[in-house]
């Protein structure tokens, strides 16, 4: 067990945890932030996407110990004061989710893209979302939801 410190959604955490767990396990089972999902735990699906020091990554592909000192944003930080973000609302408006399992990861990848490039083209959106798999929607509504925000709703 080792102590690490990290910032998640603006809050400072000090955690005492085993050295051999992933950041995904740390978030879900130690910090109880279960919005970030575990699909494959092997870097394949993107359900575990979080923003890590400003970059979107798979939380299942990072060890918790590596995150000592990191600044992390998860889906729990997206709504503010109980109000959905425009990006979350656009997902609902565009029917960009069905079962919803991929959605936290989709939103975090889209958030990272929009933070870096507020007006991405469709191609840039498709490229940025390549790491996130969805078994329900067929992707088109997800792209439309992000396009809607990229078009100015942000």
């Amino acid at each position, binding site marked *: 067990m080792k102590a690490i410190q990290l910032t998640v959604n603006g809050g400072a955490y000090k955690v005492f945890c*085993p050295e*051999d767990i992933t950041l995904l396990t740390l978030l879900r089972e130690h910090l109880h932030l279960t919005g970030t999902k575990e699909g494959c735990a092997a*870097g394949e699906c993107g359900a575990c996407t979080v923003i890590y020091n400003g970059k*979107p*990554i798979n939380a299942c*592909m990072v060890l918790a*110990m*590596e995150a000592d000192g990191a600044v992390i944003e998860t889906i729990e930080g997206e709504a503010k004061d109980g109000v959905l973000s425009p990006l979350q609302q656009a997902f609902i408006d565009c029917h960009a989710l069905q079962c919803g399992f991929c959605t936290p990861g989709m939103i975090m*990848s889209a958030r990272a893209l929009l933070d870096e490039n507020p007006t991405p083209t469709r191609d840039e959106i498709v490229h940025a979302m390549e*790491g996130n798999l969805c078994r329900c929607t067929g992707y088109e509504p997800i792209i439309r939801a992000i396009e809607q925000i990229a078009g100015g709703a942000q």
Partner: protein
Amino acid sequence: MYAFLAPKTLEDARGFLESRPNLKLLAGGTDLIIGLREGLVTPDAVMDVKQIPALTQIRQTEDVLEIGAAVTVDEMLRSGYLSGPYHALYEAGEELANILLRNRATLAGNICNASPGGDMLPACLVLDAWVETIRPDGGRRIPLREFFMGPKRHVLASDEMVVKTVFPRAAGKSAYRKKKRIRGHDLAQVGVAGLLGADGALTLAFGACGPTPICLDVFDTNTQSRAEILDAAMNGIAPIGDVRASKEHRQEMARYLTEAVLDAIEEVRV
């Protein structure tokens, strides 16, 4: 259960390489963490190389382009250095998985994982790159053309760590083409890199066409026709069939992608 080590200097890293015989190095972790999870590797300690400032550098001098062992593929792509003769590295980096993985995965990790299909490897081979390593009692320079021993096997000793990958100054133009099943989510079924020097010398390298990446040096485009080059290149590779593609498909694709690489790099010839 393993201990997590994160040395901040090369000296401390050397100390751990010496004192921890069953240690595994962690760069981006996109191969290692899967191995740990599946129990394929069971180290006593995992040593993160990313806290060592010297390893996070990417720099170009008169003679070389150096990429530290902790530099991510995405950082390479954004560096602005991967143009001209180094363009194949850019194209390979863009083909490696997807942005979520490129934000973690490193060039050194791709090299040390030694998969025959690793996307960065053919480009490294045509550019005649080498790695520089440290060990408890020193270090060495290993040309990548002598580095790969077989699938996931290389010449590094267990107490040896790559600190950087170095590309000698090059001239001309290079390209990389990859065939895969699913964009963003698959290793190469076949990957081909080519470097055409200003003097017409052509070097080709192939991923997933043998037990290691294969480098075929050197063709002369001044005297050899394209058909001759293609025939000679196809004789130099030995693809097998596996879960990603049949042997026959790989042979066809290797030829097709080699042509695509030649189309991309021959444009610049006068």
